[in-house]
């Protein structure tokens, strides 16, 4: 069909690549979450503060986040190689892909967190304050639970973005399906590999989005 021959496909390699993609996704998603969530909370809290120096902290953080978000990811990967090596020891493969992914996606996720925290009704925060809640209690028991649907939507968007980032990291030998699609499919004109890889990624994104939507729906109480 269309001059394609799927019989020569190395399914073993596709299986390994799929698994790599999942490994990269899961671990970078976890680290993105662990880094981005507190960063988002700090952004939100500091933007509301009345104290001058806290506002300065906000401005500085905000500029850093903007810079990290404006650098094209492919350039970020290369620029971060020294840092990547110092963290995981290598700059390629599954391990070498994770640090740049996290550094690229965490600021993005932090902004999404900040936005969804802003959606939380200020009256509810005030009510908690009036009951004697400390700032920490307000964050943990009111802000984050109330923002849960928005946070899950943000996580879903971030993970889907990570899927496309993993493909880009294929350019520098990052491993996974994107790597496969570029190395075999694009460089070696093996369209079959490219099509299958892309197809798998489409399915992956669909599944992730559906799962995310269900979570959001489950936690929406309004």
């Amino acid at each position, binding site marked *: 069909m269309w001059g394609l021959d799927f019989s020569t496909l190395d399914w073993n390699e596709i299986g390994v690549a799929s698994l790599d993609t999942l490994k990269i996704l899961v671990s970078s998603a976890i680290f993105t979450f662990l880094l981005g969530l507190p960063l988002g909370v700090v952004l939100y809290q500091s933007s509301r503060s009345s104290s001058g120096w806290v506002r300065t902290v906000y401005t500085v953080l905000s500029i850093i986040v903007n810079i990290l978000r404006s650098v094209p990811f492919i350039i970020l990967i290369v620029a971060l190689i020294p840092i990547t090596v110092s963290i995981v020891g290598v700059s390629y493969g599954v391990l070498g892909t994770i640090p740049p992914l996290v550094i690229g996606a965490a600021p993005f996720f932090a902004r999404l967190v900040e936005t969804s925290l802003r959606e939380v009704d200020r009256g*509810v925060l005030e*009510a908690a*304050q*009036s*009951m004697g809640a*400390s700032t920490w209690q307000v964050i943990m*028991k009111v802000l984050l639970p109330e923002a849960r649907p928005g946070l899950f939507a943000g996580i879903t968007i971030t993970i889907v973005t990570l899927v496309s980032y993993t493909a880009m990291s294929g350019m520098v030998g990052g491993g996974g399906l994107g790597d496969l699609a570029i190395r075999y499919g694009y460089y070696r004109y093996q369209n079959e590999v490219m099509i299958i890889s892309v197809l798998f990624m489409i399915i992956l994104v669909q599944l992730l989005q559906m799962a995310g939507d269900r979570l959001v729906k489950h936690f929406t*109480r*309004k």
Partner: protein
Amino acid sequence: MADEKGSDFVYEEPFLIPSRGLFIFVCYRLGTVESDRCCTGTCSKGTGKESFGLIELKQVTKKYGKGAKTTEALSSLDLSVRKGEIFGVIGHSGAGKSTLIRCMNLLERPTSGEVWVDGVDLTKLSKQQLQSKRRGIGMIFQHFNLLSSATVYENIAFPLRLAHMDKEKLAAKVDDLLQLVGLEDHKDKYPAQLSGGQKQRVGIARALASDPQVLLCDEATSALDPQTTDSILRLLVDINQKFHLTIVLITHEMHVIQSICDRVAVIHQGGIVEQGAVTDVFLKPKHPVTREFILGQAGESAQLALDAPHDGSSRLCKLTFLGQKTYDSILSRTARETGVDFAILQGTISKIKDIPYGQLIVRLEGDPGQIEKTIQRVTAEGLDVEVLD
């Protein structure tokens, strides 16, 4: 009801007086001193009698903005709320009433002035001290401000969890509160599944969970329909009596003040323009803003009465009955005796909280001497007479 002007005993409460501050004299009737003094201490069950300020605002000023754009929401405002009473603050939107009530638990920090609650100046407390003090001050809101992600049960349990109450005690407490506000059947629902009145009941239960001494109500019924408003007001009166809980409410509806408040303050442009027992303020308003609020209820018919024809041989009077006198036939009895006729041009007979009152505008007709005599007689009988022409 205590009458601040007419009281015969002046008591100076030493610990409420800051060294450099203003002397507050709180007056109340002789004979209640002993029990009142008890109420300011640790005893939780009061005697039902009024006492000196549980909440005292002293020279509270709140400014917003900086420099030339500064607006003053409250200006050097003094206010005293007694233990166990339901105190109402009425004012138009923008008068500063919301800022005022939010100053009472420091959700809004005054630019200057002192906020004393139960003998403690909140403005001097550290962050932690303020947090623990706030547990003794419940608050309910116009838009309820419930956690949308938590069930009714969890919402009520929230302040208890903040205070790390142990599980069994918490469950028992929440069940009691659910019963108090009549929401036992709804405990697993989320706020979005409740009606406005039910949401406010959750708000009330949540505010009561930490056994506060004071309940602040920020326009608590303004988002509710009239029937629901009444049921919430009844609930507030119930808890006021049951727990001897001091309630401060702000509203723009005279009806709310009239139904449940003991005392009222009228706020206008950031200052208190009139305050006192609701019966006094309501029946004999002095400030134009107060009049406006009260006339808002019966404005047209009062005007109608003043437009009614009358000449030299008749007089227009406003008679005010208060308390048990409302039920007496003072007017017809006196008129029969003096031979004066009367026409009722406008009238209200109702209740202020649980005190019956009547206010009639009547035209007295007949011999001028006899009319004068009638006025003297009914005044002697205890009615308040205001000659309008």
